[in-house]
């Protein structure tokens, strides 16, 4: 596509956004209710949220770069970038957030059958089904492949028993994509990437209260859960091949790391110092620290842009998401430390209205998980050492 075509697309996009993105949807996300996750039990916070979602859904803009037949808009990477830039320029909120968009979708686009794509991708794009992810287990954190949840083969179905932990929003999700051991003798090639309904008999969830006081994660228990091997013609109940779920999981971990690095840094395009100084004069040493942080944060925005450009054109190093995840999450933790320092005692308030229910303090504590979930910083550094720097014995 030529530059002039792209500029025409930009003008068109700007016009479309102007006409379709309600003003209320051009404000920063303030709390959980501002995020629309979709799903069977979803409800909109207000008419603006609904109007924005509907406009995007009809246009294919909940998943702009997915093919049209699966609910996307079929945009090229360059067009997708223009759309992101134009949405960022007016602070437009994402119309739909979901693990289906960020994780299962990319896995299905890569490994899925045509039947799976037709059904599941359209459901995701239309916000009909909310997915959650079942990876970690109580005894399998960084060493994920040691997981024990077992699916016993019963011919046309499995009977699954076990426990997952850190399943994000499992208590609100409709379906789960779940790693299940199907061969106890084969560590890596004995895992199947299953898909099943959270309403199945034997599935139960229990929220985990974090140090932030919030519960974005659950424990998920599976007690004799029946998982069909097929949901209809060309719709297997698993992604990829049986016993080859680890390949899918590895591919998805890359996407998870991209996602965390893309969203985990918060609003990095905005200078922290500009925001922090609105509350009053900053101590000179704190101002200097914040300026040094802003240098790192603004530099990281360029890295993110480069990373996305390279990813879309297939130029980047395959292990680069690990670097992005490491740098992005460490940066976000630093940002929140500085937010707390700039906010002083006001930022300590846990429940007051003035503090928006302790947003600063809870947000600060929540970011501590960023460098643990989806692979710890230490694991990321191991991967960079081994796969990018080619260091020995790593």
């Amino acid at each position: 596509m030529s530059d002039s075509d792209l500029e025409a697309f930009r003008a068109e996009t700007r016009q479309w956004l102007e006409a379709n993105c309600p003003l209320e949807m051009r404000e920063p996300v303030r709390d959980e209710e501002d995020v629309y996750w979709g799903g069977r039990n979803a409800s909109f916070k207000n008419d603006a949220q609904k109007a924005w979602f509907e406009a995007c859904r009809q246009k294919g803009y909940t998943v702009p770069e997915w093919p049209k037949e699966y609910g996307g808009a079929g945009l090229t990477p360059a067009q997708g970038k223009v759309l992101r830039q134009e949405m960022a320029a007016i602070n437009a909120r994402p119309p739909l957030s979901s693990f289906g968009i960020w994780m299962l979708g990319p896995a299905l686009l890569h490994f899925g059958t045509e039947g799976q794509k037709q059904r599941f991708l359209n459901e995701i794009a239309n916000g009909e089904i909310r997915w959650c992810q079942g990876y970690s287990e109580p005894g399998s954190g960084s060493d994920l492949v040691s997981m024990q949840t077992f699916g016993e083969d019963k011919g046309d179905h499995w009977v699954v028993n076990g426990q997952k932990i850190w399943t994000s929003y499992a208590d609100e999700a409709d379906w789960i994509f779940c790693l299940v051991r199907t061969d106890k003798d084969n560590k890596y090639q004995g895992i199947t990437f299953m898909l099943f309904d959270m309403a199945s008999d034997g599935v139960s969830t229990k929220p985990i209260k974090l140090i932030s006081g919030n519960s974005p994660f659950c424990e998920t228990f599976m007690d004799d859960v029946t998982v069909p091997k097929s949901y209809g013609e060309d719709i297997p109940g698993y992604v990829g091949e049986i016993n080859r779920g680890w390949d899918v999981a590895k591919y998805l971990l890359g996407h998870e790391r991209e996602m965390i690095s893309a969203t985990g840094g918060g609003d990095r395009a905005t200078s922290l110092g500009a925001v922090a100084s609105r509350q009053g004069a900053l101590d000179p040493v704190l101002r200097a620290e914040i300026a040094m942080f802003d240098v790192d944060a603004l530099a990281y925005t360029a890295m993110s842009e480069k990373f996305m450009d390279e990813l879309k054109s297939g130029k980047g190093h395959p292990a680069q998401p690990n670097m992005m995840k490491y740098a992005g999450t460490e940066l976000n933790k630093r940002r929140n430390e500085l937010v707390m320092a700039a906010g002083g005692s006001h930022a300590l308030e846990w429940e007051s209205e003035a503090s928006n229910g302790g947003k600063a303090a809870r947000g600060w504590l929540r970011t501590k998980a960023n460098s643990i979930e989806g692979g710890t910083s230490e694991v990321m550094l191991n991967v960079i050492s081994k796969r990018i720097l080619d260091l020995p014995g790593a």
Partner: protein
Amino acid sequence: MPLYYDDDQTMLAETASQFMGEEGSIKNQLRHWRDRDCKDGFGHGLWKQFAEMGFTGMLVDEDDGGLGMGQVEAGIVLEEIGRNLTPSPFLSSSVLAATALKHGSNDVKGRWLPDLISGDKVYAMAIDEGPKHRPERIATRAEKSGNGFRLSGKKDFVVYGASSEMIVVAARTSGSDDDKDGITLFAVPQDASGMSHDSVRLVDSSMASHVSFDNVELDGDAVIGEVDGGRAILDAVLMAGRVGSAAEGVGVARGAMDMTVDYIKQRKQFGRLIGEFQALQHRAAHLYSEVEIARAVTVKAAQLVDGGSEKAELMTSVAKAKVAKAAGLAVREGVQMHGGIGMTDEYDIGLYMKRDRALQEFLGDQYYHAGRVAELSGY
């Protein structure tokens, strides 16, 4: 515009990498001239080769005989200069002076540009007054005198000043020292009476001058641009020079990092390669991350400068500061991970540390530019 090189830029990078890696190598240039106590601090033969490669005039407009390229392309050459620690007046002549001359009259361009492009002459840029970069304050004065000007004052850190046939001098023609306006740029020829150099060798073996101007008589033709209108030109020169020196810094960082990563893959202690130790692996991986980010923001800043974006100034300061942080880390980790041998003159890693130190100070260090990021962001 995607944030990676297009086909032409990729080709330029390959050409520059090969040329600098061979002709401009540490052995052939930096050590060669340093060990002979060369008073220029760089090789004129190599500079002529720069001209043959088309590098000297790459930023000069095509109408003026140059290649009409941008900061991204200059950055590609500078990154290779940084990787090989190649001493050359490229940054001072072909980036700083060339950017200043872009704003000159046709007469000024005609007088100076052809010899710059051909590699017959090198030019320098005189901005700093004092040990730290603070171009907001300019005390060197040029008073009206007949049809021309009389220049008086002192400039510091004029890189390769004593070897330059002409020096672009930022001087005050009106107002007080801290005024934004009232600046004029002058092209001062080497033989100008009343100009004297105290040329000193710096830690990285490059040469720089303390230049004194004692009632130097200049004719009106020496003015680049408009009288009292030099601040905008100076800002453009600074932006080009800062994004350029950031690119060189990226090269220094990558050169030091690559050398260090190679070293820890070969060095054995306690019966193991030291690169097997996680204590070193994590530090090397962190360094990789920092250098990658510094490189990305440098290319981004160069693209913004070339595109005339209003964000160019901010991102240029971000790039200069980020590169300083990353390159500083690269050379410190480099020497430490090399152990004792890293302290020896025989080994190249120390040369990276020295070049990084000089580059840090050139056109503002990380503290200056972090401060600018704060100011430009409104706090």
